[in-house]
């Protein structure tokens, strides 16, 4: 007979260690999949996890991909910690990019130091406004934020589609679905000549520091923590529940908006249909793999960014479709949830033999 019991006290150290177990299991699982597909698993895994970062360019690409993931996941951690399930970060990213990109397009033929800060600010505000929609609907109309935030993703993506083929399309662009190139003053400064890594990474690092401070050192952070553990207690303590929901969604949306604007002013340089390879969804995995802890999220964003790079390398060298990246991301989440289950519950196999012996 199998019996499942809740563990009373889960050691903190183990709680932060299980993500590593999940990663190891993901790599093993990946090896098995490659083997079944007829590849040498060791070689394939090498192409996946080592080759992409074996040179400086690869490493900078890793940071480039980790930047938006980290930013979004930091924002999401505010929502998730307080029991608000914002899964529409992809939409907030897109809307932030639209608003930020719109401002950049206004200045397409101008130069000036003030332009980039304006563009970035517009992106953050755009994300914030878009995240406020599910938040307001949740607080005042009792809707489910999971559904609303998810469905709004498609709204913003279709809006972007419309803009880049319609009103905002490049008049000299031969009807390609894209806008003009932004002016240099709207672009994130590059950190190194020849590498794509840009100043957006500092935004992500600042978000990490700031979120750590807010979550662990302020009254807002305390309220978020209590609400996440027990909404009943938050109500009893008299926390302003509605305000808090609005605030966490705004923080989350602003971070996603920043990530979006970082992409279009960084490596992309214009608006087109594919500004994000689902960073907003993948960041949900990053947030949980990083245990909703700001520093854990840095680590997790690097790991998950590697699955993006590995998928591209594997496509080039092994002709495996790059969607295997999503398989790896899915496996990480799966193994994380599975090891969490074993962390919080213990499975007892009761042998009937022992009882029989007594008689």
């Amino acid at each position, binding site marked *: 007979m199998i019996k499942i019991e809740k563990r*009373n*006290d889960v050691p903190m150290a183990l709680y932060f260690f299980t993500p590593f177990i999940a990663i190891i299991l993901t790599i093993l699982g990946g090896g098995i999949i490659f083997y079944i597909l007829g590849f040498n698993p060791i070689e394939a895994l090498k192409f996946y996890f080592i080759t992409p970062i074996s040179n400086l360019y690869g490493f900078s690409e890793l940071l480039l991909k980790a930047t938006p993931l980290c930013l979004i996941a930091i924002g999401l951690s505010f929502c998730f910690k307080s029991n608000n399930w914002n899964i529409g970060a992809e939409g907030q990213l897109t809307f932030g990019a639209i608003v930020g990109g719109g401002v950049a397009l206004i200045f397409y033929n101008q130069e000036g130091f003030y332009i980039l800060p304006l563009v970035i600010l517009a992106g953050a505000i755009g994300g914030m406004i878009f995240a406020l929609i599910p938040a307001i609907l949740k607080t005042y109309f009792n809707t489910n934020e999971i559904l609303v935030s998810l469905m709004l993703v498609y709204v913003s993506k279709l809006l972007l589609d419309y803009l880049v083929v319609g009103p905002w399309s490049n008049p000299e662009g031969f009807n390609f679905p894209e806008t003009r190139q932004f002016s240099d003053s709207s672009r994130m400064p590059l950190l190194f000549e020849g590498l794509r890594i840009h100043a957006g990474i500092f935004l992500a690092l600042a978000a990490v520091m700031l979120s750590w401070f807010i979550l*662990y*050192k*302020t*009254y*807002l*952070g*305390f309220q978020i*923590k*209590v609400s996440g*553990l*027990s909404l*009943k*207690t938050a*109500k*009893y*303590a*008299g*926390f*302003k529940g509605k305000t808090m929901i609005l605030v966490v969604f705004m923080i989350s949306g602003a971070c996603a908006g920043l990530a979006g604007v970082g992409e279009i002013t960084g490596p992309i340089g214009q608006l087109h249909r594919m500004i994000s390879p689902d960073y907003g969804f993948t960041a949900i995995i990053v947030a949980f793999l990083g245990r909703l802890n700001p520093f854990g999220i840095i680590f997790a964003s690097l790991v998950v960014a590697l699955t993006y790079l590995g998928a591209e390398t594997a496509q080039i060298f092994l002709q495996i479709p790059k969607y295997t990246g999503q398989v790896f991301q899915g496996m990480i989440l799966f193994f994380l949830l599975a090891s969490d289950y074993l962390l919080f519950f213990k499975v007892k196999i009761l042998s*009937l033999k022992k*009882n029989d012996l*007594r*008689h």
Partner: protein
Amino acid sequence: MATDLRISNISKIYPGCIANDNVSLQFKSGKIYALLGENGAGKSTLVKILSGVVSPDNGEVFLNEKNLKLSSPLDAKKNKIGMVFQHFNLFETLSVFENLSIDATEDNESLRVRVNEILKKYNFSIDLDVPVLNLSAGQKQKVEIIRCLLRSPKVLIMDEPTSVLTEQETEELFISLKKFCDEGILIIYITHKLKEVLSLCDEVAVMRKGKVVSVSQTQNERVETLANKMVGQKLAKIKKKINISKNKDEIFKVKHLNFYSDDPFETNLVNLNFSLKKGECLGIAGISGNGQNELFQILSGEIITPNTSIIFRNKEIAKLNPKQRREYLMAFSPEDRISQAAVPELKIYENVALNNFKSSNFFEKGLVNEKKIKEHSKKILSDFSVNTDNVELKSQFLSGGNLQKLILGRELITAPELLICYNPTWGLDVGAINYIHETLIKINNQEKSTILISTDTEELLKLSDRIAVIYKGKLSKIMPSEEVTPEKLGVLMGGGSID
């Protein structure tokens, strides 16, 4: 045929706690046995072993000298051991008969005949075709008992059966139990209520810290002797307090409190009006589920009701949230101490910070002042004799009594003018109950007022100056506690009326 149940050298060890330490007991049919003990004394573990839910590490159970193998609840059923738990195992939306037929082995027609025989024999009046959710707690319990009787049990174990019953229902239950006993069913009655032991049972076994400390005839015992055995020390008896609240100023007044909810699991409140004087304790009695939850939440500000007037210290506070009400020196101790009054995963000092009143400066300019919160927490731990001085301890490691002391300490350290508490001693052991009762009396003596919402009649009679009963969301007239007897309360709690 006579039944003889023998428990021999049963031990059960949980990590960090010996639940049963070499327990041996003998029961014979024709008598009602009480198993008495505080919470955590090991009663429940022993019962779980007898009903097959838990296997003992050591020891054996004999029924009529046959060694029983009880590795699942099914084994207990097969061996004709019946069990009525404190929390009912019934499907609320199914009818009484459907509930009974779920684990029956016969066809519905013959089952109905047998059930009707039982109803007639024991004079139970229950409509078999109404959904269980329409039944009172007493009737639900009867359904559970019928379920056991259908299997013609040799042993019937009742776990804290009266905690949800009115006085009348309790009397009816006792009459039925005595009948069962006369018919040769061996009855084991588990409780921590001393008076019930004396009025119902023939023999009493007292457990303390996993061990049986005494087995005796109830006729040789009194409330005090049993209490002392249970606690293991002489209890200082709390004096019933003197009514000190005559000719004092009115401090709190509720007018036209109405609450309507669409949720069928909530109780509507109908036009409650009451007021409270300085230094007074107003008791609100009632069986749980008659609107106490909703009343507490409205008084604390968790639910804001329109058109209600709540005047506290001459100010209208009906629209304020709990935090704002605290600033006017109100304090709240909810019933659910484990998941509402405190968060088990949080450390003690973080739980203390939940009562973030303005002058505490716990959060200056939006920042956490950890040092201040910890100092304050240390003071609470020592002032309210919580048995730890480690403010970093997660509160899930505190026992119920210590957690309640911490919560009460947190609420009282602001010296509030009014404390509203709901079942403050629910599930606690005698020592902790005494401490909390003393504390509540002390604050009344300091001219502070309390509203005590409680399902424990004894507690209400001991602490209140005036008592009202809440029944189906309506409040009875408020009576001076000298005029109230447990019987009167029982009538009102069951929906009856007195003149």
